[in-house]
């Protein structure tokens, strides 16, 4: 009897643990490497790469190492010539929902229409994320991403966007990607497959076009024999 009870207890415990474990472990795990910007060497943070839309002597990237109570920060400064400047990290994501977020603040970031501010996002064409502009104190920015199939995703902490370049200073801290069950109500949501489908289609569909034009050119070539 005791053995049976113990066995049932063990099975029930395992079942409960099996159900809770992913949530417990995944909810707390930050899939970004060095998302707290705690480690780095000299002026470069570990695992993050600075990237400019256009190389410019006016665009600067800094890692601010953690100091006592202050967590580490990444800074982007675009002075003079506008730019789209970002810190980038590539992360491999399995299918599921993810909450991608960071804290950001801005100084003197252009706030006019057609100017993109400071944001955390993914580097996929056509995606737009919540931004802060002007002079702004620490603000939590983030969104939920649905991944349908395993994919490498480029996470960016950026100031400006292509064709919506900007100037100013942006600071980021406590960046994270956490696996979650699903998005919370009212949150910004992006679907990776949809974002990547904007230029999708059958690559080979261009071949019949070339064949057709090639035939027309061949006929033209033949007809032009006696010009």
């Amino acid at each position, binding site marked *: 009897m005791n053995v049976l009870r113990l066995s049932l207890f063990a099975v029930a415990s395992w079942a409960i643990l099996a159900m809770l474990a992913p949530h417990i472990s995944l909810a707390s795990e930050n899939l970004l490497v060095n998302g707290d910007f705690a480690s780095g060497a000299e002026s470069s943070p570990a695992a993050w790469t600075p990237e400019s839309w256009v190389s410019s002597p006016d665009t600067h990237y800094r890692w601010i190492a953690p100091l006592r109570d202050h967590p580490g920060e990444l800074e982007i400064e675009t002075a003079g010539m506008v730019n789209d400047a970002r810190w980038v990290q590539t992360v491999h994501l399995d299918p599921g929902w993810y909450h991608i977020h960071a804290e950001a603040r801005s100084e003197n970031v252009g706030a006019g229409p057609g100017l993109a501010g400071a944001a955390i996002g993914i580097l996929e064409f056509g995606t737009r994320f919540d931004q802060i502009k002007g002079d702004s104190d620490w603000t939590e920015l983030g969104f939920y991403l649905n991944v349908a199939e395993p994919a490498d995703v480029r996470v960016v902490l950026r100031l400006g966007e292509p064709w919506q370049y900007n100037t100013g200073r942006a600071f980021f801290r406590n960046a994270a990607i956490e696996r979650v069950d699903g998005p919370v109500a009212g949150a910004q949501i992006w679907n990776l497959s949809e974002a990547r489908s904007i230029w999708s289609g059958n*690559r080979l569909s261009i071949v019949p076009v070339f064949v057709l034009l090639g035939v027309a050119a061949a006929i033209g070539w033949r007809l032009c024999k006696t*010009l």
Partner: protein
Amino acid sequence: MARASARERRVPNAHKKEKLASSLTPAATVPTWSRIDTIAIVALTIVAAALRLWHLGYPPGPVFDEINFVGDAGAYLRREQFFTPHPPLTIQLIALGMWLFGDHTWSWRLSNALVGTALVAITYLLGRRLFQSRLAAALAAAFVALDGMFLIDSRTGVLDIVYITTAALAYLLLFRFAQIRDSADRRRTLVFLAVALGLCLGAKLMVPIIAVILVSGSLIYVLETEQRIGTKRRERHRKVIAALLLTGSISAIVYFLVFVPNFIALRWGGIEAWWRYVNATRWFEAHMNAGEKTFWSDGRASPWWNWPLMLHPFIYWQRSMPDGAVATVWFAPNPILCWAALGAIFVTILRLFRSPTFTDGFVVAGYIGFLAIYMPVSRTLYEYHYMPALYFGYLALAGILARCWRSATIGFEQLIMLLALVPAAELGFGFVGGSIALAALFAAWGVSLRRFALSGRFACVSCATAAFAAFIYFAPLYFAMPISPAGFHSRMWMQGPGTADWSCCPVK
């Protein structure tokens, strides 16, 4: 007696018609290539290359639209999706420079510098065929080499110089086609012409369509007129259709080939993705036309009628130096050349009424066509949109000045050419100094009119010398050479409000 006089009247009329018909076809002869041609084209190309390659990496950061197009080129190399409304050839050339030599300002600009240099050589070859004159060819090439807009766009990673150069190549091949008789050679020429047109279409949105219309229309005209005698109408039409089929299909193939890197590097999904790009472009243009920006919301923008008068050039880039000097890239044509080109187009139009020629018609059609395409556009337009029309203006100017040189112009035409110097003298030297200089100029011309041959040469030399002097004077603003603020302001001849503001809107 009455019959005889009627016949007498008919014969000169027939002769006149024949003469008119022959003038309306491209000249069948081109000056034979000589050592002078070799020396001229090599010298002009060396000068153009030196002007375009010297200190190419300066300014050290993005200049004007380089932020867009160099950025797009970088995205190509990172295989990062991006959208630009323009077909990608020029961006691919910028990316090629970056891929070969690394991410430096000079490598962004290298391909455009080389293409801009090639334009000078192509213009020389085109000038020979258009005007059957080495002098006209040399002048046209020199004008393109020494013009501020053509120079700056060759030293910057922006779009215009590539489609203008490929269009010029197509014009050259069109005239080659018209001036040769060997069928096999003509067919090969058509293929190269089609490739040039395809590249032209692949280098910028919409505008190259004028080059296509101009070249196709001229091709039809040449084939229809040259074989009018002795060839049945049906046969002529067959040849026209064959030529259009060959050029059209090859141009389209080349145009789509330009997109192949998008299919490979940017993972575009075939023709469907291309069609989505076309729709996105239409949305972009509609959005721009919807009036989000107007001429007056972007101080750098200007309507089309400003451009021939050079009312609204603008600053591509400007920095103050620690010593107080100011370095500027000022996007503007050479004022003497720009105003003289307008005069030359006017004179050429008048000549079309008096004694029309195919060349003059082609040049005027090109100038008006490239200007007319912008007339209905309501979105922001800029001085650089004038470049393809101005190219024809420089061809016309070279043709008229060469005619002046060989005394094939009337006094009125010479006067129009000299009038281009009036605003430059008044604005550059001030009212008193300018008036004295102009009085001396026109007095000298008046004296030279007594010997008519000399007056044409006087007008030609005066214009060419003034244009060269203007180039030297404005060169610091083309090359971003540091000069004193006083020196900068003295070169800003028009600083009024609204459209006539030469120092408008420095770009950070």
